[in-house]
Each structure stands twice: as structure tokens, then as C-alpha cells.
């Protein structure tokens, strides 16, 4: 069961990573700079359509992470302590705090991305998206690092 949850956690994380990275790039673009090449098409997506999916994936992944946490606390963390990998412990500590802060941001994030997009919240929409993107990337990479820690630090 725990393996299924872990794989699901990674898959949801990967989907979330793709969706929010798309949105983060698209919110940074200037409307006049759209090209028809790969980059232009990548950033030229209809950003608001990603919002509900991002909120759902983020919330689901926090729940999945919460379900996996007990196993981590009992099996993985003592291993990290035995291997004297303090930094890896720190990576997880920041991951759990970032996940909580990101979870709390979702209602405001959703509000700012509601259509029609309000012009007066354009800056908040952009920076909130970038902060969430940073959190998603950090947490994904931290999860992968911890998941593969034995291979990375034999």
C-alpha cells in the first residue's frame, strides 16, 4: 500500500510540476513576444485554465504526503540520522513547511486567477504563481532526493 501511495505522490507531483511551470512561464511573458516556435507555444498557453487543476493537484499531494509522513518518520528519518545526513533532514523540514504555506495560499491563488482576470491583482497573481512554483519545484526535488537517498549516498 505504501509503495502505491508513494508512486501516486510522485505522479501527482510530476503533473503538478508540469502544470504550474507552464503557468509560471506564461505569466512572465509579454503579450507581444509570442512566437510560433516551441518556446512561444510553451508560454502561450491559456493560463487560467490551469488554475483549478493546480489547486486540486496541490491539495491532493499534500494529503498524500501527509499519509506517507508516518512511514518517513519511522523508517527514513532514523536512517538519515544514522547516516549523519543532517542536510537531508533539513531538506525534508523545509519541504513540510513549504507544503503547509503553499496549501494555505491556494484560496488566494484561486481567487486571483478567477476569470475575468482582475487587472489590479496582476502583480499578486504573478508573484503568487512564482512562489507556488518555487514551492512545488523544491518539494518535488526534495522528495526525489529523499526517495533515492540510499543510491545517491551509498
Amino acid at each position, binding site marked *: 500500500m505504501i509503495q502505491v501511495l508513494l508512486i501516486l505522490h510522485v505522479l501527482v507531483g510530476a503533473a503538478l510540476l508540469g502544470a504550474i511551470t507552464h503557468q509560471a512561464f506564461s505569466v512572465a511573458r509579454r503579450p507581444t513576444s509570442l512566437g510560433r516556435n516551441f518556446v512561444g507555444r510553451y508560454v502561450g498557453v491559456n493560463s487560467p485554465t490551469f488554475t483549478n487543476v493546480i489547486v486540486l493537484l496541490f491539495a491532493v499531494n499534500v494529503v498524500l504526503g*501527509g499519509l506517507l*509522513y*508516518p*512511514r518517513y*518518520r*519511522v523508517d527514513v*528519518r*532514523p536512517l538519515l540520522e544514522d547516516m549523519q545526513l*543532517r*542536510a537531508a*533532514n*533539513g*531538506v525534508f*523540514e*523545509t519541504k*513540510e*513547511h*513549504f507544503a*503547509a*504555506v503553499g*496549501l*494555505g*495560499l*491556494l*484560496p*488566494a*491563488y*484561486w*481567487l*486571483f486567477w*478567477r476569470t475575468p482576470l*482582475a487587472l*489590479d*491583482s496582476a*502583480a*499578486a497573481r504573478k*508573484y*503568487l504563481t512564482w*512562489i507556488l512554483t*518555487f*514551492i512545488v519545484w523544491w518539494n518535488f526535488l526534495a522528495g526525489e532526493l529523499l526517495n533515492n537517498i540510499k543510491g545517491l549516498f551509498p
Partner: protein
Amino acid sequence: MSRYSQFKVFSIVFGLAYLGLFFYSEVTKVAMFRYYPVLGRFSRAALPLETAGPPILWYSWLLGALVIGGALAAFIPRSWADRVPAGWVWITAFAMVVVIVVYERRWFY
């Protein structure tokens, strides 16, 4: 936007409450409750590490932040929530990320 303006309040208060509860636990070693994965149960009291194993406090910080954020967002008048600048949300979020990074850097030395 006014129909959902309280969402801004929730997002700001949730994060601040989470960090407040976390730092309170760090300083006083007190939490609303703990989950003991070895025992598979929650406990309001801190149990001995030798018999109960390591505790998880994260759930209590999340629940506390949810209750505080939800209560404030629900009870604050909508006209007040409307006046909360959109910028406050991302600025407090950014500040919280910085606080977390600064505090947790202790693991990396």
C-alpha cells in the same frame, strides 16, 4: 472579487498561524496534539520516546492553522476583507518562505 475576498484573509492568516504554532512548539515543546506512528494513535500528551517512538507535530500545526485561518476569514466583515490589498498575500507568503529558509538553514551547517 468581493464575494471571495475572505480568501485573501484566510491565506495570510493560515500561513502566519502555521508558523506561529510551529515556533511556539519549537520554543516550548508544546503542541495541541501529536501523532505517534509507532503506536498508530494521536495523543495530547508528550509520550516517552523509548516506548512511543518519535512523534509527528505537523498535523497539529496544520489543523491549528486551518481553524484559526478559517475562523478569522469567516468572521471578518466582507468590507474589511475587500480592503486587504492583493499585494499583502504574496508579500507575506514571500516573507514566510524567507523565514523558513533562514530558520531551517541550521540543518545545513
